């Protein structure tokens, strides 16, 4: 077996050194009834080329995004990732390294995390960022719990523009806590959250661009929240938007959570992704997750370490700020490298290009009979209303090899007012031919 270095002769030698006659003796503590020495009802080991054939066959049953026109977004976005990024993250010293608890031999990972934290802080306009969370959705749940710790208040208000999955994750984390107020879906971008802020409120959660693509006014929200002693938590699912839109920190956000997948990471059918979290300096000791900090070594040389770990489970156990341990280190690396390649100049251009492609898409779809574009404002994603239930329209377009976006009903089932809505995204990879294929397809399907 190609991954197992021992020959049988070596195994026998080792048993002799241990002083036992058979491996079975090593399992003597296992209750006999539960100890299996026979065959398992699973296939036997297999040559690499047969495993590869099996996996290729499975892969071949999926329609890859690149196989045709593609407009699916809603929290995960198809961007071009430079080949350099994926090459570098596969380097042994990045891919097969452990968590950098031994800083003397982990300076590569640690310095990268320090760069990552700096990039995230700059992007969001916040003081500090952590070294990553799992993804944007769990990050949002962590953020509301952090807000409760900071404010020692309970009430949480989630905007109707928050990604429905994110809302559902918060609900699950809070076990249907009655202090959690989830506002109804707001596909027109209507902002009613301000009415719900009161003295009991720990935090309000606003996503911008929101799930339906609308840009939300953070300034007013921040002012209102702060006036009542509540925190403003801002969620961003398309981090490329920060290349064109004002940073949440500029408006006074207290915690910013973002899904970082768009930079450096493939769609991967939903994961692994990378959660970004940034906050004010004074809140850092209530932040969940790892933090990398600068220090010096015994010779006075600059170096980096994981720090403030008294917030973490491996030190504080049941008093930790979160139970998170393994995070998204390699995805954060991909993010950092891609962001380094972009720089301000590249990210700005990328964001403008995305916006321009979305405008082209919106303008083209607005001309299709039976299609109404709901958005006045958007970045690279918006919502349309069509004359039929969206799920069927999407399926019919998929049969034409056009992946036309997400029917809102898939995430919000059983809500007739949302049934005919489709959320669509464009990116730098969206071509004019793609747009024409969608417009033509929609014409046919809606006819």
């Amino acid at each position: 077996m190609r991954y197992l270095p021992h020959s049988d002769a070596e195994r026998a030698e080792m048993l002799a050194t241990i002083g036992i006659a058979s491996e079975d003796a090593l399992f003597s503590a296992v209750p006999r009834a539960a100890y299996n020495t026979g065959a398992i009802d699973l296939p036997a080991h297999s040559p690499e080329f047969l495993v590869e054939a099996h996996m290729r066959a499975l892969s071949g049953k999926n329609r890859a995004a690149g196989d045709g026109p593609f407009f699916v977004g809603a929290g995960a976005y198809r961007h071009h990732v430079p080949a350099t990024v994926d090459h570098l993250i596969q380097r042994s010293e990045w891919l097969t390294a452990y968590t950098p608890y031994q800083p003397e031999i982990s300076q590569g990972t640690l310095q990268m995390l320090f760069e990552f934290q700096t990039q995230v802080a700059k992007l969001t306009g916040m003081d500090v960022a952590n070294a990553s969370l799992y993804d944007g959705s769990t990050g949002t749940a962590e953020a509301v719990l952090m807000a409760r710790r900071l404010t020692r208040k309970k009430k949480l208000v989630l905007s109707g523009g928050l990604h429905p999955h994110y809302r559902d994750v918060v609900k699950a984390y809070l076990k249907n806590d009655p202090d959690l107020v989830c506002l109804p879906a707001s596909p027109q971008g209507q902002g009613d959250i301000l009415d719900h802020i009161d003295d009991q409120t720990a935090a309000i959660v606003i996503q911008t661009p929101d799930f339906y693509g609308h840009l939300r006014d953070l300034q007013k929200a921040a002012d209102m929240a702060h006036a009542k002693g509540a925190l403003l938590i801002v969620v961003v699912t398309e981090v490329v938007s920060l290349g064109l839109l004002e940073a949440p920190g500029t408006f006074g956000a207290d915690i910013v959570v973002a899904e970082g997948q768009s930079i450096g990471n493939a769609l991967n059918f939903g994961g692994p992704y990378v959660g970004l979290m940034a906050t004010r300096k004074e809140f850092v000791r209530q932040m969940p997750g790892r933090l990398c900090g600068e220090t010096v070594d015994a010779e006075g040389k600059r170096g980096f370490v994981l720090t403030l770990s008294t917030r973490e489970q491996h030190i504080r156990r049941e008093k930790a700020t979160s139970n998170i341990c393994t995070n998204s280190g390699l995805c954060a690396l991909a993010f950092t490298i891609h962001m380094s390649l972009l720089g301000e100049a590249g990210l700005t251009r990328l964001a403008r290009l995305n916006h321009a492609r979305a405008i082209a898409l919106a303008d083209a779809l607005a001309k299709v009979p039976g299609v109404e574009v709901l958005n006045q404002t958007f970045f690279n994603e918006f919502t349309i209303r069509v004359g039929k239930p969206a799920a069927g329209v999407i399926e019919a377009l998929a049969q034409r090899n056009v992946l036309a976006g997400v029917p809102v009903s898939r995430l919000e089932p059983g809500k007739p007012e949302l049934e005919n809505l489709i959320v669509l995204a464009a990116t730098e990879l969206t071509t004019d031919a793609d747009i024409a294929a969608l417009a033509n397809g929609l014409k046919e399907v809606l006819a």
Partner: protein
Amino acid sequence: PDEPLLFEIGDTHHSGVDLPDVEIDESRLGGFRRKSALDLAGLTEPEAMRHYVRLSRMNYSIDSGMYPLGSCTMKHNPRLNEKMARLPGFSDVHPLQPVSTVQGALELMSQLSHWLMTLTNTSAVALTPKAGAHGELCGMMAIHAAQEARGQGHRNVVLVPESAHGTNPATAAFLGYTVKPVPAREDGTVDVEAVKAALGPDVAAIMLTNPNTCGLFEPQIIEIARAVHDAGAFFYCDGANFNAIMGVVRPGDLGIDAMHINLHKTFSTPHGGGGPGAGPVVLSEALAPFAPVPFVRKAAAGGLEMVEHSEGEALGRITAFHGQMGMYVRALTYMLSHGGDGLARAARDAVLNANYIKARLEDAFSVSFPDYPSMHEVLFDDSSLEGTGVSTLDFAKALIDEGYHPMTMYFPLVVHGAMLIEPTESESKQTLDAFCDTMLALAADAKAGDKDRFTGAPTRAPRRRLDETRAARSPKLRWQPEEAPPAAAAE
């Protein structure tokens, strides 16, 4: 040589991408166009390549040496898995594409679930947890939901042995449970009588690791499970150490109700410098109805469908989308490569390796719990270093100078100055022997009074010991440009 920070190499004008500079009409931006500077440094491609290659060379990694890191299962990461995860049919697929266009992905999830359930003899598996700790959260949420459904939502205590990973009490507390410790016996195992004594009508569950963090298989585990169930509680098993028993012992046969499986340990998805991981949770028949969404099932119309919304009493959703698909691909590739026979062989080799190290080192180091064979890791305490002036930390740092990653130190907390060594099945006898020779030589040096080489270690790493206190006292968590020197005072 030192590598500067990217902000010290690049600037906002440099970029490693070529993109057209399109003019945009701001009318759709509603006045929210960015006015503040991004101030993000960019690097051209050659600069970025060299920067991240040079940085990487300051890292230790599995591919460059052994990681005798107890409880972390740092095994070989086959590159076939990486290659498969990058097939466009897996990597370039969106989680919200129509289900009809992702039948291969659903099939893969279904196959992975089958392997996990077969290896554990359980009834369901929640694939979505993003890592081990997230799996614990998921399992405990399912237990909470099940207790609620039984009308036992008031049970607010979770039993956790002292030797548990920190994530166990942290998870329980995160969900609002009160953590009640269970003491260990002298021999390093959990006493069924102690568990019985701690159980009561307020106990929702026990969280127990098996094999435990002392590297021992809990001999009374079946009795413990029975006692827990008799008391109306559930048995959550921390599966971090599943590598010791996969293909050999099915946790379902021991009576566990929920167990997360770290795909990034047992099934070799790479650790990546701290993630991403994946922590699917297998569930007993009693807990299966409370699994989170989404999950895959056969569709009435043929093919597979994905259930994305909870019905009844299930716990709901614990993450956006469908979990760590990239890790599913790697783990299934690994499983198919090994086969059922190979997984069992791997577990046995992992155990063999740990016991071989134990046999070779036991005269020079103090085995904490000698009553049982070790499973896949062996625990030493620091009593053999007594009087040498060399601490466990010093000893571990000296290992760095010899070309090894240190073992796990000071964990588990139940012994003094713990050194927990887990070689995994990936290491050859040649490597194990070289490692043991080094350990014995270091032990001899320590006893010979050569203290400086330990307290001063490491000297051959990219850095000497780092000042962690300073880092925590005035945290510097992001780069800032050097302040300009104050202008000379005017005359």
